[in-house]
Structures are given as structure tokens and as C-alpha cells.
């Protein structure tokens, strides 16, 4: 379900501060359209991770309005947030894999949370591991996987439940250029299946790898719009294409 103006996510004058410090995000306004691919760039400390935390509902803003899937999530009762989180896939910068679970069980976690039976889980998880090239490492614990492999497990876990929005925080920060390109192709494939993708990165070379992507730039907590991503409808995927 999309919100007003066809956006799946809408931020309006959003500000965020931690405690009594200055705002880490100020007057952030944008609309994400369904099926689009966005890069969120900016220097370290620009507020990318804070913006992503708002996107994956780990944080409420200090001010402003956020609408997701057509619902105001600021006033949404806490008990309804899990249902919204299940529609958002998240790739954390530090992967956040559950260390005592195998790659298979980590990827299966969102499906188990959504109440899917063990029989129904087996095939999609195996297929997903194959898609990220880790079917032969299904029983491996995260500590025995390389950085790139862990990253792919984290991505598989983020997309296994077919989220409507995928949020990835520096997903290529811990991998070599070849692996970064492979991961980006995974995101692109998912985007072509209809998922709205937001990738936070400070790697400018990465931006050129997805030609149709839109770029949002954060500078000291304020958002700028070098590709017109925030002004114009997307060039692919969304309802206007």
C-alpha cells in the first residue's frame, strides 16, 4: 500500500536529536516511491545511520511526520510496529547475525517470526541461500564465515520475507570490490522484483554501478537532492513508469 502521492515512505520536516544534543537530522523531507532504487550518501557522521534507523522503525523522530505504507508511524501504537517492521528488510552495517544460529537458521528467522511452519520454511530458505551463493554453507555458524559471506547471509535474511522496502547500511563496507559488485547486483535483482531499495554508502564508485538509481545526500543532518530524487517520480519501477 502506498501513501499520499504514490510514495511508500514519506518524511516531512523530520528532525532527530539524541538527548539534549544538537539535532543529528534537521528538516528532512522526502518521498520514496515503490520499486525505486535510492542511494543515501554523505560523509561519516552526516546522519545516514540515524536516517536509516528511522526508516527501519528503530527510532522515533524528535519532530516532524513519517508515513509508511500509507500510515502515520509516529502516532502508531507500539504494538502495531512489529507488523510494519516485517514489511521492511534491514541489512545492518555490522550484520547482526545471531551467532549461535547457523546460516540457515539466521535466514529462516524472519519466516519463523511471521509464524511460518518448519516444513514451509525449508525450501525458500534453501533457495535464498543458493541465490546468495551460500547453499554449501547452510549449516555454518557466522563466526566460521568470511565477512563477505556474513554480509550475504545478512542480505538473505533481510529479503527472505519479500519486504516492500529494503534498507541497507553500508552493505559493501566490509567486502572487496568484486564482492561489493556482486552484492549490489543482488540488490538490483531484488529491486527489479518490485522492492524499494535504500542503500546507505559513502562509496561514490558504487553509485555509478546502478545507472537508474536516485541519490539522496546528507550533509550535517540536512538532505540535498543531486539527482532530483526527492522532486521527481522515479525513472523505473514505481507507479509512474
Amino acid at each position, binding site marked *: 500500500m502506498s501513501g499520499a502521492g504514490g510514495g511508500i515512505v514519506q518524511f516531512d520536516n523530520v528532525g532527530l536529536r539524541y538527548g539534549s544534543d544538537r539535532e543529528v537530522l534537521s528538516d528532512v523531507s522526502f518521498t520514496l516511491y515503490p520499486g525505486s532504487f535510492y542511494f543515501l550518501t554523505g560523509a561519516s557522521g552526516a546522519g545516514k545511520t540515524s536516517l536509516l534507523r528511522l526508516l*527501519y*522503525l*528503530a*527510532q*522515533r523522530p524528535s519532530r516532524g511526520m513519517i508515513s509508511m505504507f500509507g500510515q502515520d508511524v509516529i502516532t502508531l501504537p*507500539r*504494538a502495531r*510496529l*512489529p*507488523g*510494519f*517492521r*516485517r514489511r521492511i528488510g*534491514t541489512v*545492518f552495517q555490522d550484520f*547482526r547475525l*545471531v551467532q*549461535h*544460529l547457523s546460516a540457515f*537458521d539466521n535466514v529462516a*528467522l*524472519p519466516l*519463523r*517470526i*511471521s*509464524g*511460518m*511452519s*518448519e516444513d514451509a*520454511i525449508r525450501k525458500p530458505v534453501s533457495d535464498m541461500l543458493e541465490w546468495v551463493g551460500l547453499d554449501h554453507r547452510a549449516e555454518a555458524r557466522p563466526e566460521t564465515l568470511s565477512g563477505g559471506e556474513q554480509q550475504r547471509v545478512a542480505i538473505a*535474511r533481510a529479503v527472505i520475507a519479500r519486504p516492500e522496502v529494503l534498507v541497507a547500511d553500508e552493505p559493501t563496507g566490509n567486502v572487496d570490490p568484486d564482492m561489493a559488485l556482486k552484492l549490489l547486483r543482488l540488490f538490483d535483482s531484488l529491486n527489479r522484483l518490485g522492492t524499494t531499495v535504500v542503500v546507505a554508502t559513502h562509496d561514490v564508485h558504487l553509485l555509478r554501478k546502478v545507472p537508474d538509481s536516485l541519490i539522496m545526500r546528507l550533509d550535517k543532518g540536512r538532505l540535498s537532492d543531486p539527482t532530483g530524487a526527492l522532486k521527481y517520480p522515479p525513472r523505473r519501477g514505481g507507479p509512474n513508469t
Partner: protein
Amino acid sequence: MTARLGGDASRILPQARLSGPMPWVIAIMTALTVIALAGGLALANLADNARAEISGGLTVQVVEAEPAARDRQAENAVALLNNRDDVAEVRRVPEEELAALIEPWLGAAGTGSTSTIPTPALIDVKLRGAVTDARLADLGAALARVAPAARVDAQASWLAPVFGAISSLQFLALGLVLLLAATSAAAVWLAARSALGANRDTIEVIHHLGGTDGQIASIFQRSIAMDALAGGAAGLLMALAAILLLGQQFAGLGSGLVAGGGLDPMDWIVIAAVPFAGVILAMLTARLTVVAALRKML
């Protein structure tokens, strides 16, 4: 939707199980609770049996120094009591029995037929129904006409201090049961908080993936319930051994009063329910602890 997390919950949060000495703490708490409860129930039975035994019980004493007059008045009293409809049973306590009762205080020389110490004639009376002050006064007035030296006492009034003491012990047992339940809940609360801390990262991940408070709490609940059940069963076995041993010791005393303090089948059912009540208490405590902690997260 609040679906249960599939699979083995302990695989998702392995530290949610109560680790280290906690199952043994629960076992000891259960054992102490069962022993306190069994003691309270035995005392309740003892008091009930004693009350039933002396309910309607009266003692008529004919306090007359002159033996012939004492005998005559005692016979008159027995005859009057036997003719009353409200009297179920009358028994004059034989001289030998009376002598045996007071021998420990007066010695053999003071209680024989040659004794110069006058002892009252005693008549055991059982009324139909409970003894009330009005019935006691009515009977005393009737007896005064045929046996002026007769005094009537309700047996229950003699034992009132004993019943008072038993009642106090029952309250003590109840207090102990409640105190132990509170201590067990506090122990589970500490264990649940510790398990929460140990699994904080995993809980955050489950939370971000759309896990509900109920799902996360149910993982802890199930794990803690298993440990509480194991600890409770061990505690019950320990307590049963202690109860049976104490039962044998008290049975050896052969006292009528103490023998009335056994446990009936319903009491055993209540005792067997203690570990299950412990599991419910542990699950409830774990759930409230975990949900309260999770509410601090968005």
C-alpha cells in the same frame, strides 16, 4: 499477529534457560514450600479432628469431700443426664482411671483407697450438638437441683489455648508459603533479567525483524517453565521424603492429639500441585519481567 516462534526456542535464545544454581534454588524453594504447606495442612486437620472430638463434650465434677455424699450426688447427676434428650453419652470416670490420671502429681500414696486427699467424681458427657453458654447454664441449673456440688465445664474451653496456638502455627505456615512464593518469584525475576542481558543483541535482532514482545516473552516463558518444572519436581521429591520421615516420627509418639494431624487425599493433591503452581508463578514472573524490559525498547 502474534505467532509463536517456530522450532526449538532454546536454539534461538540459548541463555534464556535458567543457568547455574537457579533450578536448584527453585527445587529448595519448592521443598520448603511443600514442607510448610504440609505442616499447615496437618495442623488444620489436627485442629479439625480435635474440635470434632470435643464438640459437645462436657465434664461434670462433683466436688464433695465426703465420699458417700460425693457418690450419691454423682449417681444422681448420671441419672439426670441419662434422662435428658439433649445428652448423647454419659460415662462416669472410674476411680482407677481417675487415680491413674492424677498419680503423676500426687503419687501412688495420694490416690489409693487409703488416701486422705479427696478427689472429685468426674462424669464425661457428650451433648447432641455444640455446647453453648445457654445450654451449659441450663444443664448446670438442672444438675444443681440433684447434685449441689456439681460443676459443669465445656471441654473446648480447656483446650482454647491449644487451639489458639495451633491457629498461630497455621498462620505461620501460610506466611512461610507466601514468603517462599515471593522469594521464588524474586529469584526468577533476577534470572530472567540476567538471561535478558545475556541475550540483548539477539532480542534486538528479533525485535527489528518484527518479533513481538509476546513472541520474545514466550521464548523465555517456555525455557523458564522447563527449568522450573525440573526444579519443582526435584523439590517435591525432597519434601515428600522429609514429610514421610516426620510422619513416621510423629506416628511413633502415639498421642491421640498428634495422630489426628495426618494428611488426607485432598491434602496430597494440594501438595502435588505446588510444583505446578511454581511453574505458573515462574512463567508469569518471567513474562512480566521480559515484557516490562521490552517496553523500554521502541
